């Protein structure tokens, strides 16, 4: 194992190489371009035995990955924002075709207006396409999650998306431990799908199912997604056993006996830790819960970690227009019909990369403490006058 200082994009590149991906197809888009820049170099100089396919669009990038995965090869792509939106059709297809492709999405705001900074609305607006979704807090977690994502995806035959905040991770250098290849090989077995596209065993894939089997196939997809929660938990435990780093699907921080729990994801969680520490030092019962696995939604873990608190302050760096913070609304639905469920405060913060500072998070806690119930279903943090 070696430790290197690297940007989040390059942490992904190293993880993809350690995962022995065989086909990489991508179209560059800020801020994800660094991922495939380094991967293309690795393919060119032999560090990675993979075919790098430069395509003319993100749609083609994912279509290329689909073809590769269909033949039984481990496939990877990276994109961001508008690039992910352009893949939308193929996202549905890959999930329905049960192709365990791994995609790194650098969370970037959608236009109009143009904005290249951190915002989760790009990946969260793809939440219903059938992709497993992970959200990462730091670059080590990014590298580790890519490796885990391949394992989980291939076990349940569903594709997986690993999300990280634009610039706060993609372009920020942090020390990252790079595990030894042999150890990764022990954790992540070779991709061995039940069926493959091969000339000596010709099959048709994705055709109109005979006997009206569409709904049954959808039910099997959904069961696999439900199974993925447990598979992801096991993968996290075994990852910890193998590499010494534990990344639970829902992570708690000083949440024991907390009356008020901050609930968030991505890099805001890192900032929230410091605020929680300060509040705990002041003797207040404040904790934090970080949602890492968003799809499949980990209902049991959410109910278990959040159910005992009096108030939840959910901070969303995303927005469903006409509804509100997406994580908050999913948490509300998970707690619905529970006796003595906590009051959910939904905060929108940091859209388009606006800083969510320790002071702002501290303000969120203060504002949540100040009232019994929120004055509105959604509260906005830091809007300019």
């Amino acid at each position: 194992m070696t430790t290197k200082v690297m940007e989040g994009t390059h942490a992904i590149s190293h993880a993809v190489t350690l995962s022995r991906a065989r086909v990489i197809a991508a179209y560059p888009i800020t801020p994800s371009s660094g991922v495939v820049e380094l991967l293309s170099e690795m393919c060119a100089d032999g560090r990675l035995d993979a075919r790098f396919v430069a395509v003319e669009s993100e749609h083609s990038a994912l279509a290329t990955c689909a073809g590769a995965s269909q033949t039984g090869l481990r496939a990877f792509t990276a994109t961001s924002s508008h690039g992910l939106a352009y893949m939308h059709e193929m996202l549905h297809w890959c999930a329905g075709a049960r192709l365990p492709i791994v995609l790194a999405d650098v969370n970037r705001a959608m236009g109009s207006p143009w904005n290249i900074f951190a915002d989760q609305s790009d990946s969260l607006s793809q939440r219903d396409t059938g992709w497993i979704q992970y959200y990462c807090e730091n670059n080590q977690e990014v590298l580790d999650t890519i490796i885990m994502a391949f394992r989980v995806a291939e076990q349940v035959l569903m594709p997986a998306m690993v999300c990280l905040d634009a610039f706060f991770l993609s372009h920020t250098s942090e020390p990252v431990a790079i595990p030894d290849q042999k150890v990764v090989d022990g954790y992540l077995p070779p991709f061995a799908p039940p069926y493959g596209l091969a000339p000596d065993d010709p099959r048709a894939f994705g055709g109109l199912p005979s006997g009206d089997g569409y709904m049954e196939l959808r039910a099997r997809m959904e069961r696999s997604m439900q199974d993925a929660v447990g598979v992801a938990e096991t993968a996290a435990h075994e990852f910890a056993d193998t590499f010494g780093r534990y990344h639970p699907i829902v992570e708690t921080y000083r949440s024991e006996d907390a009356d008020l729990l901050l609930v968030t994801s991505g890099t805001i969680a890192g900032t929230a830790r410091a605020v929680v520490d300060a509040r705990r030092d002041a003797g207040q019962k404040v904790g934090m819960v970080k949602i890492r696995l968003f799809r499949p939604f980990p209902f049991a873990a959410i109910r278990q970690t959040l159910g005992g608190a009096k108030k939840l302050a959910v901070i969303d760096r995303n927005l469903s227009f006409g509804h509100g913070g997406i994580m908050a609304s999913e948490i509300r639905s998970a707690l619905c019909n529970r006796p003595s469920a906590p009051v959910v405060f939904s905060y929108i913060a940091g859209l388009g990369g606006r800083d969510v500072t320790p002071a702002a998070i501290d303000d969120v806690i203060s504002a949540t403490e100040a009232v019994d119930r929120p004055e509105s279903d959604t509260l906005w943090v830091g809007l300019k006058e």
Partner: protein
Amino acid sequence: MSPRPTLSVSIRALERAPAGTPMSVSLRSTRDLATGNWRTFRPTYVTRPSPCNLDCPAGTDVRAFLALAAEGDAAAAWRTIREHNPLPGVCGRVCYHPCEHACNRVALDEPIAVHAIERAVANEAMAANLSAGPPAGASQTPIAVVGAGPAGLSAAHHLARRGYAVTVFDEMPEPGGMLRYGIPAYRLPRAVLDGEIGLLRAMGVRFEGGLRFGRDMGAAGLADYAATFVAIGAQRSKRGRTPGEDLAGVRSGVEFLREVNASGGSRTSGPVVVIGGGNTALDTARVLRRLGARPTIVYRRSREDMPAHPDEIAQAETEGIELVFYAAPTAFVGENGRLARVELQRMRPGAPDASGRPRPEPIPGSTFTLDAREAYTAIGEDVETDALAEIVEAANGRLRADRWGRTGHRAIFAGGDAATGAGTVVEAIGSGRRAAETIDGYLNGRDPVEAGEAERVPQSDVNVFYFGRAARVRPGLMETGDAIGGFTEVVTDLTWAQATAEAQRCLTCGSCTTCDTCLVFCPDAAIERNPLAGGYTIDLTHCKGCGICVEECPRGAMVLVPEEQR
């Protein structure tokens, strides 16, 4: 409930958020963004020579006249041609049109039929009785031109329009030279030639026929002229070294054509043999066919090696003329002092000669015979340099003159086939025009200016994507039976509508047509139409030098210039 805390950031419901513009919109013009300072290359409109313009030996502005023809303006197209070439009706018919060989349109389909359009333009001008226009400023300095062929006519035209008093002398009674006494009327109707020569007369050019220099006049006869241009062409048929050439019935093709063209030919019949592969051979054979004979053309090389134009060869075959390749005469055999048959020998291609073509060599023991009471030799023509020995030196069988017609003798200039040996009407016309410029310069104390060869628009600079495919027009031909029954023109006229449509196929390489492609593509909206001067202006405050306009220009009329080189 705790007391309401003091917060460092606002936290509130949207109902209490301030209102503002509903969308991201600049409140001032994008013109505030001075993107011009990003630029390292500057797009520039240029006029570059089109391949057709560069390859026209007469110097015709082909591109310009095609553009005018495309607009349907025959008169303006005609005047544009005549800026360089006073004989569009002639050239539209008999020029071998090198302009078409280099046409960039081949990147899309086929070259523009420039010759057919030129002919239609001339027809329209003749039908409209267009005048030559008055000469510029009248100096009335007298100039002599010896030889009324295409070079002499061209020089006379360009001198007359500069105001000189030009007299053209010729051995033959009527002006035209080879145009009248060499090229048959079925290729060049005499009314067309007379019409274009008539315009020279209207400009004040005088023609003195029936005067052969060195016989009927000499250097003394030129004393009254400030300068003389000599362009006597190549008239004397080359002689082979074949036994029996002196027999009755063995003739020179050129002399035969001259006789037929001067006084009409007499009916004949039976097999005749024509030796040669150039235009004289073809013309001789086709005239003989019209007079009733059954000609066979014998050429010592292949069809592809024939100097005659492929269209002419095809028409000759259609008219029933037989072609025998890789054969050469070894003897003209007579009976009772008159030709009875031609003995020939098969040839085969040997090692390449000076021209790069395989030198034909005889195949031993392969002789054969063609019965014929007449045979015509057309293996080339020599310049009768001896007639002019008094005023112009000769070298290598030609009059010695440079590209500009200067002979080394003050006031004596020479050009056309007699000096260049080029052997084409269009080269002669170009030579005559250059000589006229030189003479004008000489009389006004100026040397001719050699324009540097500008770079032509290469095919790679033409964006054929912007042009639709359109088939090249194919002028009709007379029914063969009618064609060989007389001397009516074989190739039929285009209608003016056909000519206009054909001209509209022109890509106008290297010249802006204000098609707006640059304006449409400019991502900075930095290109604007120039309503006063025409064309476009580039707003350099905003042009960031991306080069899209240059890349997209359909016709290579824009270039990028590095800012530091400007």
